């Protein structure tokens, strides 16, 4: 079976809902099937990657660490939407993992290349 391009959209912030954590479950499942995966962080989803998250004083699970480990699962393409970053006062230097920034045209062309898109 040839590898298909699958895109996972992260659209919400971490901790307040389960979509980040359960979206990662879906990414890991996709990676075991040896598909060609990309992740795009857009809207509040860019906060999933913010560095300095500190759950030491909390019982909440810092599931966002897994984004940093995705390379070990063969997932290397992580993108953020520049306008989402900018309107939230974020820069790529503030993120915990290396990402490529895409403008809206870049997002459109990323989506155009995909076989399937999953939204979380």
């Amino acid at each position, binding site marked *: 079976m040839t590898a298909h391009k699958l895109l996972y959209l992260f659209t919400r912030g971490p901790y307040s809902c*389960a979509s980040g954590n359960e979206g990662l479950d879906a990414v890991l499942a996709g990676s075991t099937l040896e598909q060609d995966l990309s992740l795009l962080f857009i809207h509040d989803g860019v906060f999933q990657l913010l560095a300095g998250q500190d759950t030491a004083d909390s019982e*909440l*699970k810092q599931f966002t660490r897994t984004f940093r480990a995705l390379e070990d699962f063969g997932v290397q393409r992580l993108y953020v939407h520049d306008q989402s970053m900018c309107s939230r006062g974020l820069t790529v230097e503030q993120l915990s993992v290396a990402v490529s920034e895409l403008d809206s045209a870049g997002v459109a062309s990323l989506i155009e290349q995909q076989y399937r898109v999953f939204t979380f």
Partner: protein
Amino acid sequence: MKINILVNGALYSSQASYSAWQYCLAACEAGHQISQVFFHQDAVAHGNMLSVVMSDEPDMVENWARFAEHYSVPLVICVSSAERRGVLNGALATEHAKTAANLHPSFSIAGLGTLTDASITSDRMVSFS
């Protein structure tokens, strides 16, 4: 002071449960009394004893159960929301001819009048959605 707590957010996919639990711990440590914790809407899922927690995730049902026992706080699930979402005690299971019940022993089921009542007779009501 007596504080009534209302939780509306889902067990796993909302932070409401965690926020409410942290608030309740802080309130009790400050000497306040929680008159009851009422779980409405999607929050009734708290009473489902079948939920299984991943080893590295917080076990909110057990957190609430321990809190309730330690401070003698009733944990009340809204009956109409619970029926719609399949959280039943033995009596409801029998009434609706279901083959199993799944209410966690630390929770009880009651009507929305219980919420109105407790919100009036307490000094405060704090809601988490």
